[in-house]
């Protein structure tokens, strides 16, 4: 399972970087999204995958059964997703303003002077 996810993460990174290198602000944003998803999935994978064993102590026990899934990577990812969402919303607005102001989607057309 780890191998499959590792390949998926690699593909996400590759696609993200490819998109960022295109000459388009819109694709740049898509690239950033893919890159952050790749990072999130990477945390999930390196944290170790345990199927169907939630880290919840059964009634009467003082600790969850071992092995159980590590909850920390999931909470890290949750935080990262929330932050990523806010940052993405901001950059969408910023890039849209840029598109309106410069009248072009091509990063090379961004000129400071008229």
């Amino acid at each position, binding site marked *: 399972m780890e191998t499959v996810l590792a390949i998926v993460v690699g593909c996400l990174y590759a696609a993200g970087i490819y998109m*960022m290198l295109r000459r388009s602000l819109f694709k740049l944003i898509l690239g950033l999204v893919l890159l952050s998803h790749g990072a999130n999935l990477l945390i999930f994978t390196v944290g170790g995958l345990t199927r169907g064993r939630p880290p919840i102590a059964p009634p009467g026990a003082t600790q969850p059964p071992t092995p159980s899934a590590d909850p920390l990577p999931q909470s890290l990812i949750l935080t990262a997703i929330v932050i990523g969402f806010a940052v993405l919303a901001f950059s969408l607005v910023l890039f849209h303003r840029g598109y309106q102001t410069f009248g072009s989607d091509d990063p090379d057309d961004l000129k400071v002077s008229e």
Partner: protein
Amino acid sequence: MMANVLLVLPLLIPLLTAATSFLAWRRTALHRALAVVGAAALLAAGIALLVYVWNHGTIATQAGAWPAPFGITLVADLFSALMVVLAGVVSLAVVIFSLGSMDRGREAYGYYPLVHGLLLGVCGAFLTGDLFNLYVWFEVMLMASFVLLALGGERAQLHGGIKYVTLNLVSSAVFLAAVGILYGLTGTLNMADLAERLNRIGPHSAVTAVGMLFLIAFGIKAAMFPLFFWLPASYHTPPGAASALFAGLLTKVGVYALIRVFTLLFVHEREFTHLLILVLSGLTMVTGVLGAVAQQEFRRVLSFHIISQIGYMTMGLGLAGLVDSPALAAVALAGSIFYIAHHIIVKTNLFLVSTVARRICGTFDLKLQGGLYQSQPLLAVLFLVPALSLAGIPPLSGFFAKLSLVQAGLNAEQYAIAATALAVGLLTLFSMTKIWAEAFWKPMPGTPTENAAASLLAPAQTRRLLIPIGALALLTVAIGLGAEFVFTLATGAAEQLLHRESYIQAVMGGTP
């Protein structure tokens, strides 16, 4: 108890200031008053923290009383306390300067609460003891800086903002991936706990690879060679006060993070990691200063100089890893810390001076500026103090900062880097002379009536703007004259950084 309060105050003050201002959204006058009070309180809290840490050694507190390494840890050693004080100094100067220079529109759209949002992120990054938490504070800081950079929506701002946002998001993604892999390798993210576990692992190629990811992530934030291109593309676009705040604080948070992780965590393959840092430092210095020579815009010249100065700050870190004796390593790191303290004050000041020059001449273009020495002799003196200090002329702060670094370079027998540092200092002086000759000495191009129309400032306003500039210039002179004291402080901070057991002990309690 005292330690807990002192550690939380530098976070609480900017948070409360920003939150209160956001609640009273329409009352700009209140924003202005709160911003000054908040910045002054932050400075006071920083000084109190520094004094406490100086007397009691490294202190730590656990949020919600969850014992380390499970909870969120706040730690202050001398280095982080010193950084908080510097953040307080810069914020107070910039906020006072903003009162007289920021336009109504930006003030109404939340400029002051955003400044405090930025300070919250900066102080959080200095005080946290947890790597993931550091990521979160970085994002807080970045979010505020994104908005501050784009606030106003001028063409140039959007242009710089898009580059700035993109590269910083890439850096965050790399940082996040590095944090994730490190967690996978060690099973913890608390920095003290990590230091212990990495000690047990010893030299390991995967750990070093993660260290390199951190070097890339923080290298982008700190604007190291070859990752600095976002900085000169964006720092000259926002209003002067905002760019002074950026110039003073943002890249230094990246340098702080680099020094923290490469003195605490990744210290087991120093002959590779720290040599790489040293080489990059040299290249950063040289490319930055050469870039500055080619520029003709006041703030772009200064922006390139930030890059070249970052090289000096990381140079001490690189040297500290390459010498065997702890005493020599402490001297090198102390040089770095001294340099950061000197640089933050001087660079903020130069950006503030450039803003006043822009107000008087109507442009940032050095070719079109002129006559400032004649019309504003006081401003000219206040430019010379930080400019000469930046170039390293005695008895100003920059001289002692450079002296200690070059000495550390000679001690470590790294003659190439010592020579580079000296040569770059000379080129810096050349750049500062260029600004002096263009903006201050040569007569103003254009007719007097045109020039009077271009000037956006009444003399009374100019005097108000000169107060924070004068205060920072005095501070630069004071650091130069009191170099002994500051160096003692920096050496203390460096020794704490190198004595990792004290940090681990402070966080983990009785089980080091």
